[in-house]
């Protein structure tokens, strides 16, 4: 009788998370912990928390976690990385944090090519505050502040922030994945591994956008939320590698 799925080393044991049933944060937390263990860098890892549902992530991660001001995750991560380049720095942010209030910090830290990794959880609504419209809300999607569905004439179009960042030369690796089933979760783990490895190699800014379910605010069951990501959300936000300059940067040795 061998346990096939070991508890991740950098995930606290016997803690019941505050996340809603079926929330993607639990899966993303587990994947981050597993990849840190696989690459054996958990001992020097520092994670920067966002404001949002993941604000209490320090209760679940068993390594150093710092809390940043709303949207300023990458600014804080920049400071940590520059002051102590030996540390492995992750900024864990949601769409309200990264794509709304923290757009300036996000774009400038990416443009500077800071050697940090951003885990961007995109669930198309403001989760913690009760499901208001976010910049990433899909066209026609009903939220508490777009009750008739998002209308582009009035509320604008969904913001593709990761596509935008992928055009910058400082961004070495950008990929969008979806938590839409076991296959999507395996791909997400692979993407996080690639991003973490590019930071270890000192190549620059890497970002993984994870399309994540928010069953409570989408007013769907967890199973229907997974299906909605697969059928609707990936149409607006197609999954795949958006930029991969790892090979080029390794050869040119532009390393930070």
């Amino acid at each position: 009788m061998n346990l096939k799925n070991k508890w991740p080393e950098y995930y606290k044991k016997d803690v019941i998370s505050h996340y809603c049933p079926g929330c993607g944060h639990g899966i993303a937390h587990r994947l981050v912990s597993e990849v840190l263990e696989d690459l054996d860098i958990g001992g020097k890892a520092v994670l920067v928390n966002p404001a949002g549902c993941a604000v209490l992530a320090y209760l679940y991660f068993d390594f150093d976690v710092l809390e940043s001001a709303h949207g300023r995750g990458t600014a804080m991560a920049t400071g940590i990385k520059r002051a102590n380049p030996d540390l492995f720095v992750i900024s864990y942010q949601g769409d309200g944090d990264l794509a709304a209030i923290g757009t300036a910090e996000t774009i400038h830290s990416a443009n500077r090519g800071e050697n940090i990794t951003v885990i961007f959880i995109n669930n198309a609504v403001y989760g913690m505050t009760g499901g208001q419209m976010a910049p990433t809300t899909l066209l026609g999607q009903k939220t508490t502040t777009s009750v008739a569905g998002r209308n582009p004439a009035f509320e604008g179009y969904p913001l593709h922030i990761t596509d935008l960042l992928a055009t910058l030369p400082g961004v070495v690796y950008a990929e969008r994945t979806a938590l839409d089933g076991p296959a999507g979760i395996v791909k997400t783990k692979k993407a996080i591994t690639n991003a973490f490895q590019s930071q270890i190699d000192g190549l620059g800014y890497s970002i993984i956008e994870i399309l994540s379910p928010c069953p409570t605010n989408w007013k769907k069951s967890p199973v229907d939320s997974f299906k909605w990501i697969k059928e609707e959300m990936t149409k607006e936000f197609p999954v795949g590698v958006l930029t991969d300059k790892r090979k080029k940067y390794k050869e040119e040795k532009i390393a930070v």
Partner: protein
Amino acid sequence: MAKTKNTYTVTTRSESCKGCGLCIEYCKSGKLAFSKKLNKMGYFYAEPVQDKECTGCMSCTLVCPDLVIEVYDG
């Protein structure tokens, strides 16, 4: 000699399960089902079905947001 079939044992930490039902949806062999009883948090938790066989695909452990499911080899 015919290859012996692997067997797997599934257990769930019923007290930390929030009853999202993702593991039940993605289990191909129907090994997992909702319980009849509530746990302390007030959810119908996922529990293994006695007469179904686990194939060891690990899909349930991949989709579980709360690390509830344990799969044992043997």
